[in-house]
């Protein structure tokens, strides 16, 4: 039998010598230009980092290409960031410009550092998953094309984090991003009664429903759904393949805003619903791109320096957010889940 439980290779084996030598002894860093960072250590050593956007879903050829670049300019060292950008780590300043030129030639975008938009954290979508309500890679490409200038320039009031999840599982970071794009369903699951008892554990299916809309149906050896209680989360389909929920016409996208994870200035925040539904419109999702574009533009025009989307909304209030972005406020925006009461307004303070 082959060896198991080896764990990942020790990261220290793959550090560039300059990082190994100055590990834990960095004094400061600065942004040289969009996408280029310089770290200076106590010994005076200088490390240059060039950050490059990647589509996350990449081919082996892409990996080999960036390996070639790393071999030529960085002694073979690179890393991936937590937003799946590629960072080339250079110990020689004279290599910075040649690498930037080489990246430009290949069309790899340099940026994503500082008060800029970084890459979108996203998920599988129609590429690989069985529960999505929308695609991931397609929308990410469309939105990043539209906001590309903000990736390559540090021209925003603060960092802008956009994330996408293709269903309510929210794999990734949509629940805590400045702008979140989320796939949602709008129809009740269709139960395949013949198949259900054979492929599903009925108690598990019943327990998977957050609104207790599913009940056993002993006569059919199946379950029934109280359609009044179902809000189409699709959790039962995750547990049971005989409860198909996908619907090409009614599935679509919700946009959430105002989340953050850092503790800088204000504590972390969850993102909250801004637009309840936009249609799936592949391959370019123009409605989604326009909506995100509009929110970003209003935020740029309105926010103070250093103010994240959520902090901006907290300052001006949600009435003004909806007013300035032109997004209609509907009954869908009012939280009606178990823990909704603290989200209601318990004060007379509001803006007309």
């Amino acid at each position, binding site marked *: 039998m082959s060896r198991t439980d080896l764990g990942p290779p020790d990261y220290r084996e793959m550090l560039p010598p300059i990082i190994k030598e100055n590990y834990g002894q960095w004094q400061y860093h600065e942004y040289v230009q969009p996408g280029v960072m310089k770290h200076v250590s106590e010994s005076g050593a200088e490390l240059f980092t060039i950050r490059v956007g990647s589509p996350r879903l990449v081919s082996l050829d892409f990996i080999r290409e960036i390996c070639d670049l790393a071999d030529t300019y960085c002694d073979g060292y690179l890393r991936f960031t937590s937003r799946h950008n590629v960072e080339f780590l250079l110990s020689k300043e004279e290599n910075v410009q040649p690498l930037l030129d080489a990246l430009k030639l290949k069309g790899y975008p340099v940026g994503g550092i500082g008060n800029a938009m970084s890459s979108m954290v996203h998920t599988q979508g129609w590429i690989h998953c069985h529960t999505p309500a929308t695609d991931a890679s397609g929308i990410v490409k469309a939105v990043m094309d539209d906001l590309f200038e903000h990736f390559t320039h540090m021209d925003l009031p603060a960092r802008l984090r956009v994330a996408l999840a293709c269903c309510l599982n929210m794999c990734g970071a949509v629940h805590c991003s400045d702008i979140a794009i989320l796939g949602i369903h709008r129809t009740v699951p269709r139960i395949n009664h013949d198949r259900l008892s*054979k492929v*599903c*554990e*009925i*108690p*598990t299916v019943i327990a998977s429903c957050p609104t207790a809309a599913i009940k056993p149906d002993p006569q059919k050896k199946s379950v029934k759904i109280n359609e009044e209680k179902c809000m189409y989360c699709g959790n039962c389909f995750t*547990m*049971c*393949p005989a409860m198909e929920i996908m619907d090409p016409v009614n599935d679509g996208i919700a946009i959430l805003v105002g989340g953050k994870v850092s503790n800088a200035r204000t504590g972390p925040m969850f993102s909250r619903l801004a637009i309840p539904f936009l249609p799936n419109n592949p391959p370019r999702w123009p409605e989604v791109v326009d909506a995100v574009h509009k929110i970003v533009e209003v935020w740029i025009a309105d926010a103070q320096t250093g103010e994240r989307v959520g902090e901006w909304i907290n300052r001006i209030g949600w009435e003004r957010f909806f007013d300035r972005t032109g997004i209609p406020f509907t009954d869908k925006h009012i939280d009606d889940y178990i823990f909704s009461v603290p989200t209601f307004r318990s004060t007379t303070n509001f803006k007309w």
Partner: protein
Amino acid sequence: MGYIDFNGQQYEVDEDGFLADPTLWTRELAVFLAKNEEVELTDEHWKIIDYLVNYYKQFGIAPMVRKMVKDTGFSVEKIYELFPSGPGKGACKIAGIPKPTGCV
């Protein structure tokens, strides 16, 4: 979906080899399914399989791994020794219990 031939009969299985209809499961079929998993069934294997079959019959779900360890007295390591592909893909498949679902 595919089929496996056993005793001159065809049984529908899904792409991972789980029985499409668990009601067709028999002890003889378990021996055949175990061969596909490269497992030679011993008394210890049968103790786990019988436990799973009875638990599923009684509660309609497969037991949690901790429950299984407690009730059978086998450690997780031992279960993996008996069923190299694990309690879900190995033991449940041979016991004719529906394929584990969720984010597996």
